[in-house]
């Protein structure tokens, strides 16, 4: 146990976060602010009674997107099309919610499934572009993202636009077509779904043949190909799962407050990129991805609170994020350094 704790402290992630916090404090001192008050504002603002609801809502989206990106990343595949898949999921869920003839509870389920299917199909298209046409996944997923976002934007501005409104948004979901919320907060069952997805990812990663093959492919793709893991099939499966999760995040966004598809509201907070950062930070490990997502959600929400109470601009929390990432990126060169030292010591 003791070993575990000291191991965790020496782990590069803990080190990077600590370094980020310290350098962030120096920044704060430099601008004449009180770093302790500022950090306190971040914590109370995000984890205190007033902020926790907002944080958990943010966690829902950030963790959802982080999982969507972590799952292919575990096999060394990078899905840069999260925005497009999420927005397609959102608009599909909105259309389903508005036009489904089913009773409201079933419509909610259907809308979630439709959103996931749309995201999955779109991500699968990116995978097919790589498998069949040789377009690198990085490129195909990213470029396919733009038309999807534009299509959703068009739909929200023209055919599906709420009559009489000046905003680019669809009509509000019919009564009852919404994810059940906890109490009177904005936190919905969506959080539960995303946490379940994280648990399923953890289980698959640790305890299944499929998870093992994903991990080995990520560590050495030629090794897994040599042992008979079929890469194209794997790419297609992982991208479909990834897209389904992104679609789920979009659908949850539409089926929670504001209960409609608003053009830009899904992409503007940058969940895709925060999620990608969280996944990279955790090298796509399941538990680490959850922790990193929570960490970034706290920074995002707490940064706003800090700006309100201490007048330190919330951009500081972005600086903090950036420092953590830079340190983690540098870690890639640390192992070599230590190994050489070991050699010299022998």
């Amino acid at each position, binding site marked *: 146990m003791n070993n575990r704790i000291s191991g965790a402290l020496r782990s590069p992630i803990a080190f990077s976060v600590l370094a980020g916090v310290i350098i962030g404090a120096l920044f704060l001192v430099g601008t004449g602010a009180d770093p302790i008050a500022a950090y306190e504002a971040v914590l109370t603002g995000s984890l205190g009674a007033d902020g926790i609801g907002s944080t958990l809502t943010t966690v829902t989206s950030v963790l959802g997107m982080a999982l969507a990106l972590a799952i292919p990343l575990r096999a060394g595949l990078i899905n840069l099309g999260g925005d497009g898949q999420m927005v397609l999921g959102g608009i599909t869920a909105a259309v389903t919610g508005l036009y489904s003839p089913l009773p409201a509870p079933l419509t909610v389920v259907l809308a979630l499934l439709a959103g996931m299917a749309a995201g999955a199909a779109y991500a699968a298209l990116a995978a097919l572009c790589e498998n069949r046409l040789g377009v690198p996944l990085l490129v195909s997923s990213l470029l396919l993202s733009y038309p999807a976002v534009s299509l959703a934007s068009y739909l929200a501005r023209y055919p599906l636009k709420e009559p009489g409104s000046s905003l680019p948004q669809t009509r509000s979901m019919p009564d009852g077509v919404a994810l059940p919320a906890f109490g009177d907060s904005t936190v919905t069952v969506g959080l539960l779904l995303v946490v379940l997805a994280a648990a399923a990812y953890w289980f698959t990663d640790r305890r299944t043949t499929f998870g093992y093959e994903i991990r080995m492919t990520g560590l050495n793709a030629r090794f897994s190909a*040599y042992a008979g893991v*079929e890469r194209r099939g794997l790419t297609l499966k992982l991208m479909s799962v990834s897209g389904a999760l992104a679609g789920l995040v979009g659908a949850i966004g539409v089926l929670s407050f504001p209960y409609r598809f608003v053009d830009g509201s899904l992409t503007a907070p940058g969940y895709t990129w925060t999620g990608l950062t969280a996944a990279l930070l955790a090298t796509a490990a399941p538990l680490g991805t959850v922790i990193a997502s929570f960490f970034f959600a706290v920074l995002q929400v707490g940064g706003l609170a800090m700006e309100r109470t201490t007048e330190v601009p919330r951009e500081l929390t972005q600086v903090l994020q950036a420092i953590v990432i830079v340190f983690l990126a540098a870690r890639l060169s640390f192992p070599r350094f230590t190994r050489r030292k070991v050699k*010299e010591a*022998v």
Partner: protein
Amino acid sequence: MTRRQAEPAVELRGITKRFPGTLANDAVDLTVRHGEIHALMGENGAGKSTLMSVLYGMERADAGTIRIDGRAIKSGFGSPSDAMAAGLGMVHQSFKLFDSLTVAENVVYAAEPRRFGLVDRAAARRRVRELAEEHGLAVDPDARVGDLPVGLRQRVEILKLLHRGARTLILDEPTAVLTPAEADALFAVLKSLAAQGRTVILVTHKLREVLEGSDNVTVLRDGRVVARLVTAETSADEIAAAMTGRAVELDRVHAPGTPADVVLAVNGLTTDAVHDLALTVRAGEIVGIAGVAGNGQSELVEALAGLRPTTAGRVTLNSEDITHASATERRVKGLAYVPEDRHAVGTAPAASVADNLAMGHHRTSLSSRGLLPPAAVRAHAQRLVERFGIKASSPEVPASALSGGNLQKLLIGRELAHDAPLLLVEQPTRGVDIGAIQNIHDQLIAYRDSGHAVLLVSAELSEIRGLADRVLVMYEGRVTATYTKDEADERTLGLAMAGGAGIAVEAVD
């Protein structure tokens, strides 16, 4: 014949280099005079590469001194660029060239002739032409390097060194990938360079080319210098005895097996670099494939393993047609495979020893209904670690922490544990220390004797002769000769590998 200068071109004194678990260089002295071709010989793992890495600034020695032209280099070169600045130049076994750039661009890279701060392309081409003419290294400066055959790429490497003014050239196993004719051309070039007063250090384990091409020989064994010979006064036997020493036992020829039914039958197989190839391997038999690297052996094995598409022909495994089966299907039908490159293909170095040992077993014995219990993976790893004597502090350490020999034991143990009727093995002991070599050879023989078929590809003639019941020689993608265990002596095989058994008789004089 050579311009003699007072100080030696390269003088190494007492170079000692220790890696965890091995003493790679033990107080090695090496003196190379100006204008000579000096062969540095030794078997795999004798310490040749380490010594050259120390000389070239890629590794730092634990002890010893380096002098270049009599000038002491304090604590060795810090990097290859320091070594280059002092007039050294090295051609690595795997070339360091940009395939998509032209010959001229490659040659002048990092030392470009400049004009108004820009690369002067015309000057670069002119320079390459001059150098090529001066040294008899004919090559088109405008050709794309990726389009050139291996022999010409090597010339580009040499031109690169000459362009940077290297006075001492180090060539690491330069003929491993060359055809005999290309090798002859290379030696002609080296001799003319030496005649101009440049110095050549030739790292190799091939006797023939040392005898034909060098002035002096230094032989390393187990990290120590065991002989310093003048080529003109020595013989192949003397060098071989010095190289192998106690390793003579390595040349132990195992008793032949008792072949039974055909397990692998290949007919008219054609794929990249392999043409219309036929062979059979029986149960209880090791069939060895000998050949100079690059004559289609790797492609053949990859095709058999299902990693490279077969364009024509038929392959059967226990009478079942597997010509177009995927790698997975082949494994299910009874094929195990030890690939040549254990770091890039055979293992995931960053994964744990346990995870590496599970590969291939993870779908069969270790899993049930898609689940892979970590306890089963651990227990499996423990079993194999014990059975094959893999030295790992725990199954949880990353495979990259293992020594080369132990990593190879892991790989071979994992594949043997499949108990597959057919085992494909490529270069099973390349870069493996002597103790591990014997262990691996014994394992392969035991596997054969328990009634399995083994197809062995090796560049080590001694290995082929020691293990194989039949030897096939591959040359330019075809099997050009087949020998029984008794017929396959070093001379016969060497001749056949150089193309002497087939069409290109005139290549061997």
